[in-house]
Structure formats: C-alpha cells, structure tokens
C-alpha cells in the first residue's frame, strides 16, 4: 500500500528566502500531485507530475519528480507572504488497490515572515 511522507511538517520562512519541501513515497506511484490549502478552504491544484524527471514551474513554485528515488520536491523561490498555506503532496496509481485514489502526505504548514 502506498505511503506518502512529507518533510518538514512545519516551515517558517523569511520573505525572499528559498526553501524545498520533500515528498517521499513508499512504492511505485504513477503520478504525483501537489496541492495548496488555505485555512478553512478547499484544496487548490498546483502541479501534476506524470513521469520521471518531470519538472513544472508556476511563479515562485517549482515541482519535480524522481520516480527512481521515489521523491518529489516543491521548491519555493524568494518566498512572499502570500505563499503562507499548507502544502500537500499526494501519490496516485494507474492500477491495483490504489487505483483512482490519492494518498496524501501529512501536509507542510508554511509560514512566511517579513
């Protein structure tokens, strides 16, 4: 059964600094997703990563996938206060008992300070 672990779970950043959130998963996963959640709100889709070596960027966020290492990263460049939120990674599968479902990591609570 797929297990997904994120670290760190809490991240306090200064504005303008760079940092990376790591997402490790336990077994083969065909696809990896990143979501953002603001307090009391739903999940906003950030990235969908479907192949080894995939890299996607949107604004100050960049996500990558290394299926051999079973690792995805979310890199934050020059953080701004608006990026404060909880970030989740989630693994999916094209078959087996995990077909169609997302297995989420614990979430990383990101706080950006002036």
């Amino acid at each position: 059964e797929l297990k997904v672990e994120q670290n760190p779970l809490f991240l306090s950043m200064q504005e303008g600094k760079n940092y990376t959130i790591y997402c490790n998963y336990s077994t083969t996963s065909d696809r990896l997703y990143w979501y953002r959640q603001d307090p009391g709100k739903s999940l906003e889709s950030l990235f969908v990563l479907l192949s080894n070596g995939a890299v996607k960027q949107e604004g100050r966020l960049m996500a990558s996938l290394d299926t051999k290492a079973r690792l995805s990263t979310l890199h934050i460049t020059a953080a701004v206060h608006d990026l404060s939120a909880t970030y989740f990674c989630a693994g999916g599968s094209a078959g087996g008992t995990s077909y169609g479902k997302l297995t989420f990591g614990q979430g990383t609570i990101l706080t950006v300070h002036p």
Partner: protein
Amino acid sequence: EAGVTQSPTHLIKTRGQQATLRCSPISGHTSVYWYQQALGLGLQFLLWYDEGEERNRGNFPPRFSGRQFPNYSSELNVNALELEDSALYLCASSRGDGTYGYTFGSGTRLTVV
C-alpha cells in the same frame, strides 16, 4: 465554468443520526471522489464513483456509503454517526481516473454532537 459544488456547507448532527452530503462535479467530469479530512488524521480517501459505479473504496466501515446519479452528481451517506465522524468532507471530480488532475470542492463541515 462552475467548479465542484458541495452542499450543505455546514451540517450539525447528533450521534446516531444519519448525514447526507451532496456533490456536483464539473461539467464533463464523470468521476467523483470523496475524502475525509479529520483533525489529526489528515486527508483520507473514502470512495470513488465513475459512470454510476463504485470503483474503489477506502478503509472505512460500511456505514459510510454513497452513490452516483445519472447526471454524475453524488451523495455520501454516513449512518449511525459517531463523534469521530466530525470532519471536513471534500468531494473531487475528474475526467476518467484522474490521471490529469482532480478538482476539489469547498467541502462540507460535519459536526457530530
């Protein structure tokens, strides 16, 4: 384009009662998924419906059930409510099996007292 809509936004029920939560997917999406986000337990998969059929089910007791209607909307029923069922219930929709992404609704906050 309207997003995934869920109703009601909030629901308060007494232990032992039944709760019904509703979800309308994005137009063109045939799959609907239900997730529970409980404090301290994270986001857990409940159910996946596609074309009216249950395709996958998470590790939840049978008192959690649902269905999908011909217009692809879905409802989640929780029978014999327990205090620990208090959570945010999120619905998501996708084309097919979600390979290219899932869109989540704003959720229903269920409180069991």
